[in-house]
């Protein structure tokens, strides 16, 4: 059970990519947060590891403690989130794309209709639709303890 005070610092955690069947239900879940269907607004991405016979790659924000995306932002639209990762201030963002380029694992997706990045807020909605337990949501404490 996640304690109330640690909710803000919870993290999306990758348990085991070999459990992933590539159904992409997490992607659809993330896009559905705002009530619509499709994929455009998804902050998590699943692709094959070079052909499905090799399994899948889960591309999602790792909630870095010192995020390269934040450091690359010229307008300081990205600020450090409690527990790691970043929070986006839409008003400050000029849509330059530097954050997306800076993320080593390519976990900053792009919203073409707003021309702004899609930043994972670690809400964990996607994990409710991962039937195989590939991803889970954890508090920072749990994450530190289990790593």
């Amino acid at each position: 059970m996640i304690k109330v005070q640690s909710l803000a610092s919870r993290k999306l955690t990758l348990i085991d990519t070999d459990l992933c069947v590539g159904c992409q239900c997490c992607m659809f879940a993330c896009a559905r947060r705002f009530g619509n269907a499709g994929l455009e607004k998804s902050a998590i991405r699943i692709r094959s590891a070079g052909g499905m016979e090799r399994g899948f790659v889960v591309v999602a924000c790792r909630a870095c403690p010192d995020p390269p995306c934040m450091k690359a932002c010229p307008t300081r639209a990205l600020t450090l989130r409690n527990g790691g990762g970043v929070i986006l201030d839409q008003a400050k963002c000029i849509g330059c794309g530097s954050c997306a380029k800076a993320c080593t694992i390519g976990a900053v997706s792009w919203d073409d209709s707003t021309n702004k990045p899609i930043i994972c807020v670690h809400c964990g909605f996607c994990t409710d639709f991962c039937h195989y337990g590939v991803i889970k949501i954890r508090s920072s404490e749990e994450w530190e303890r289990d790593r």
Partner: protein
Amino acid sequence: MIDKDPLARVLFVDLSSRRYWIEERRELFEKYLGGAGVAIQLLKEKCIQGADPYGPRNPIVFAVGPLNGVFPIASKTVAMFKSPLNGNLGESHAGGRSAISIRMAGYGAVVIQGSSDIPIYLAIKDEKVNFRDASVLWGMGNSYSVGRVIRERELGAGIRTIMRIGRAGERLVPYASVITETYRHFGRLGLGAVFGSKKLKALLVSGNRMIKVRDAKSYRQTYNEIFTALTTSPLMKKYHELGTPMNVDPLNEMKALPTRNLQQACFEGAELISGESFAKNHLGRRVACAHCPVSCIHLGALREAYDIEPYFYRTKMISYDYELIYALGSMLGICSSRDLLKLFDEVEIHGLDAMSTGVALAWATEAQAKGLISNEETSGINLKWGESEGYINAIRFIVNRSNEFYREMGEGVEKVAKKYGGSEFALSFGGNEMPGYHTGPAALLGHLTGARHSHLDSAGYSIDQKAFANRNRLDPVKTASLLIEEERWRQILSSLVVCFFARAIYTPETVTKALGVMGWDLTHDDLNEIGFDILRAKYEFKLREGYDSKNARIPKRVLDTPTPLGSVTEEYLRQGMEAYMSQLGFSSETVCAKAGS
């Protein structure tokens, strides 16, 4: 439907003039939903009467529906075309990422017309269609390589479909498949050969859009209900766990597993090629179609030693399903799961339909044993039940079209038997090689009457299995009406387009709710009516193209080998076919008149 749903857009691509354009066809989708319902209308419109299946006037229609990209397990694309295998309606469905990619690229349907003078592949990315030179890919020995090259050359990993053909399609084997995402297929009725005739090696579609729903709250609620049912219902368990091969054992036990070209309906080696055996000895990974939590795709790992060098191995991942196990396993008397995986791999490499291939090889084995063909025809191969080596070589000869006999083998079992004899044991219905359910009269009648001549049309095996369990017998008229009832409902599912594996979850009530989210206010009765109209539209096309149910060929073997419900008579099937056509609203006069016109 919701205003501005991109589903209403149909992308037309003309390979002859290398042009493309988009048409708004909202009226079609409003009325027929999408998928099969819209595809048959587009086919009737764009395929001229009597079109050569290999000619530029035979269009390829891909259609998706309102639930694709919106609700889970709405993961299928419907392809329609004129089939080179039976010269009539060609319809084939596939999953993978095909449906999601087409919907996310912003289309309800993609229609490919004309034909190219040089090998090409198409890369459709949202609004843009790129015509790419495929000269280097043409003739490539292994279909896996074609997928790999395109995967590495193009963008959109994770949000794209890559449909491609193997050499069988290039060389116009009329039961060549189109492979999508390596492990799924538009397998039946020869879409691969239609691709080949257009010099279309592959089709990539990618997209990444948002789709508006009518009401976010009811969307989430309906979504959650369906998702929960899919992941917890015992009705989905068989697809989760052993996958479709779980059918091997029960069908064999009830003596409905076609064996050695249906000389028997029970295979002594069934246990060795059952779902349990594959899971225990080979299952290496399970994968899923996009937006389906079920993950029914079972990949078997095959580790093989090279004999040219010690300590050299390769491990391949090969997908297996019930129909392959039946067609290349029990039908050929093969009881080694390792040998079977090698055969599956062989048909995959060349891009053949496994079912048609297996049925043709089963006929050839019996024909050789009976002396209808000799070693001369087979180029020295002794086709023998259970011996996979000969079958692997024969498959290569079929694809290479290496001599007159193998050229005929590569035209389908009906044609090869017509030439060499043995039609009575050439197992096809409506020109399409038989699926693996010798359960009783409903299955046979379903294969004869179904619009695709497939077990998936009306699932006659299920009617038989119920009759078997309840120990009752149905008359042909009743059987025909049960088949129509199922087939008309399946037109709705294949217009949404929901995978048939979820037919127990997508009940009329759920479908009504889900369609409500997408802006269709339809009752169960409305859906029934639409389903019926779609089915009739398919038959109108079939009749237009010369389908003649009165003279449908019934291979004697299916009558001679008893089913669990006893031997089926020709009279029963003829009466059933007549009842089916008349219940669909086609009187025998229309049938004759249209067939003769």
